[in-house]
């Protein structure tokens, strides 16, 4: 099409502009390379004299020229140039589309209109450069090699080191006779010599008696596991393999007494108190008692009551909780908060009390407390965590108890139920048939249980937020809440 020639001319013009910009871009790159290369003959100026300066200048110019030529003669796709023209002149892809469709075999009738429209707009455009100038990364570093070259050109020539390398060939008799003379050519003759040292008087080796250290290596007390592991007496003794084996046996025996091992698995970071304390902190959040939501306060009190109820012993904060609930019913938020604080304080005290001496020390609680609890009667059952059902060394392993049966007699704390195989549970009201195997007994304080409570709490919170955000139908909301309630009751 004849009209399309206007568009082709535009594309050629843009192509030329692109070539010039590319030539600039590549010339700068070449200049950088040439400047680096020019430094080499300048370094060797002492040897080459004026020729080095000429060579440096030639390399610099050649680098720039070669770069410019490479940039100018790189291929410019016509489609790219047309797109650039569209962008540069705001032609909304008219030129690229028109050129593409002008000779298209399946051209639609609208293409004629498109070409005419594109030509009209191209002829109306104002002449200006549309190709932006791009600088290579090397451009900002060009002054460095140029300055270096200038310094090298103006400064006196760098002297080359003189002298020959030593002759490594087989030496003749003369060489051996005059070693100092030959070395004198390469090295300065007045080189400082290292000062002579006085001969050190060394002590003679004597036999040492490897006596044990005072206080170390004594017999360890039973149950003092830490002391056994801290025993360093072996290190100070003279090598005695039998003694080493003996000590090793003793340690292995101590390891077998699992009931005396320190409780390393207990997770003290997630305790009842801590969870409730976190909740109470979230609840208050710097608010005055009258600003606290009664609903949330009730939830927290319920939670504290539930935690207290789960323990086999009556919780000391039950009275405070009841008082708080009563105050809440009467609309006395402040009083309810006070009661909650008291309950929290009791919970904290109990927590701290429970943590006393339950560090990494081995041995039984009763032993560490110096027998404060006193002997128990045969009918008294221990609470959770109490492991004093059997005398020392008995009943912990099959066949070691007093009972002729391998597993020993059922413990008193298991309520004499022959079907209860060690899981301590609580019977629920209304479920008389079957045996309750829930883990509400000892299991309530184990780390996994506490983590479970924590996770369920987090999920409950996320669920409430999601329900508020996602517009869940009310029927479904009820189902979801029932589901979480069921999870909570487990």
């Amino acid at each position: 099409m004849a009209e399309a020639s206007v568009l082709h001319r535009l594309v050629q013009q843009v192509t030329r502009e692109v070539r010039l910009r590319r030539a600039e871009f590549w010339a700068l790159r070449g200049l950088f390379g040439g400047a680096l290369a020019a430094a080499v003959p300048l370094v060797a100026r002492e040897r080459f004299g004026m020729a080095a300066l000429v060579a440096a200048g030639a390399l610099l110019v050649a680098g720039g020229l070669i770069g410019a030529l490479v940039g100018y003669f790189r291929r410019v796709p016509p489609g790219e140039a047309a797109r650039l023209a569209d962008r540069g002149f705001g032609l909304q892809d008219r030129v690229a589309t028109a050129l593409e469709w002008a000779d298209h075999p399946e051209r639609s009738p609208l293409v004629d209109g498109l070409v005419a429209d594109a030509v009209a707009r191209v002829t109306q455009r104002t002449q200006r450069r549309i190709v932006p100038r791009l600088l290579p990364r090397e451009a900002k570093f060009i002054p460095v090699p140029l300055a270096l070259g200038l310094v090298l050109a103006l400064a006196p020539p760098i002297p080359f080191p003189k002298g020959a390398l030593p002759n490594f060939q087989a030496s003749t008799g003369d060489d051996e006779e005059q070693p100092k003379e030959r070395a004198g050519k390469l090295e300065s003759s007045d080189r400082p010599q290292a000062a002579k040292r006085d001969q050190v008087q060394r002590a003679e080796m004597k036999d040492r008696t490897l006596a044990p250290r005072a206080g170390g290596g004594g017999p360890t007390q039973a149950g003092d596991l830490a002391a056994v592991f801290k025993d360093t007496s072996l290190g100070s003794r003279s090598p005695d393999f039998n003694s080493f084996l003996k000590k090793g046996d003793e340690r292995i025996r101590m390891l077998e007494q699992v009931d005396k091992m320190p409780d390393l698995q207990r997770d003290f970071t997630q305790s009842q108190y801590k969870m409730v304390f976190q909740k109470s902190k979230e609840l208050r959040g710097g608010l005055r008692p009258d600003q606290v939501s009664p609903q949330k306060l009730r939830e927290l009190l319920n939670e504290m009551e539930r935690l207290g109820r789960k323990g086999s012993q009556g919780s000391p904060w039950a009275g405070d909780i009841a008082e708080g609930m009563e105050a809440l019913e009467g609309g006395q938020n402040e009083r309810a908060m006070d009661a909650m604080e008291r309950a929290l304080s009791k919970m904290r005290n109990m927590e701290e009390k429970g943590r006393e001496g339950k560090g990494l020390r081995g041995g039984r609680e009763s032993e560490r407390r110096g027998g404060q609890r006193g002997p128990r009667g045969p009918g008294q059952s221990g609470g959770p965590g109490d492991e004093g059902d059997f005398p020392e060394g008995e009943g912990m392993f099959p066949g070691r108890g007093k009972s002729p049966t391998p597993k020993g007699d059922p413990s008193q704390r298991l309520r004499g139920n022959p079907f209860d195989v060690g899981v301590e549970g609580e019977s629920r009201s209304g479920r008389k048939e079957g045996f309750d195997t829930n883990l509400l007994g000892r299991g309530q304080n184990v780390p996994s249980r506490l983590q479970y409570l924590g996770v369920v709490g987090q999920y409950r919170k996320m669920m409430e937020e999601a329900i508020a955000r996602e517009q869940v139908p009310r029927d479904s909301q009820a189902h979801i809440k029932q589901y979480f309630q069921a999870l909570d009751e487990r």
Partner: protein
Amino acid sequence: MTQSIQPAESQERRVQEFVTAFQTLRTEVQKVIVGHDDVINHVLISLFAGGHVLLEGVPGLGKTLLIRTLAESLDLTFSRIQFTPDLMPGDIIGTNIIVEDADGRKHFQFQRGPIFGHILLADEVNRATPKTQSALLEGMQEHSVTVSGTSHPLAPPFFVLATQNPIEMEGTYPLPEAQLDRFLFKLRVRYPALEELTEIINRTTRPREVHVQRVMNGEAVLRFRELVREVPIAAHVGDLASLMILASHPQWERAPEVTRRFIRYGASPRGAQALVLGAKVRALADGRYNVSIDDLRAIALPALRHRIILNFEGEAEGIDADRLIEQLIEAAENLSATGKDAFLR
């Protein structure tokens, strides 16, 4: 292509005719509807592209009024179906009833439902059961309905405009992906601005009634639809449309990170068709003979927002489909050669 090559003046006249018709129709609708210029434009684009529109917005924003006004501006038959949970497919398509002829013999006769109209307003489409919603499927895609083994064609132009409310989700049945995909555009109707609200009050609380004139007939709509398909699109623009679609697929090896992270299923090829057809109408309405990259950018949101299905992470983080699509457009442009100065180096 078998079409004869016509002089440029003739093409220019055709395009000008379209531009005038488009603007006239928009002006008629704007006599009643205040603001929502984008929504009106996209509804008209959809009409001339031959697609259907889903309008989403809270009650009282004028969705139904907009559609009714459009129907009044066009010389076409208009049906309205209020979707309710007890609506049955037969209530939409029609049913066979027993009729008695002059000889006293009884036979079945097909009683046409409201789908047999040119413009169908499916109000609160998500309130009907999926079974009833699916009654629209065949009509929307095939432009025909089949009852008792007999296919009944729908008279062209057939244009479905459905509305749904995003807030009252209780007792609703969200449209399945298959049906959503059949809508060319999903448009979000937003709250009016202060000036617009004042103008709404002025227009609607005075005794003066606004009369809308019929400015276009069905034949013109069909003619313009033909014209739209003739609009040429450059290869690099078409490639960009394809890249936009592919960039929404997490399985694609060059998919951007945001896609892999938040999208479960990307847009279908129907999405690409919607993108290009919508861009063609937009270009023509702007008086241009070709599709530009700007057209694609403008059409991408309504054409793709209902075709991208977020994964769990995307939904949990409350990712907005519109923002995601904007990122996809950017990623697609980076992937394509357009907008890059790389070749200058």
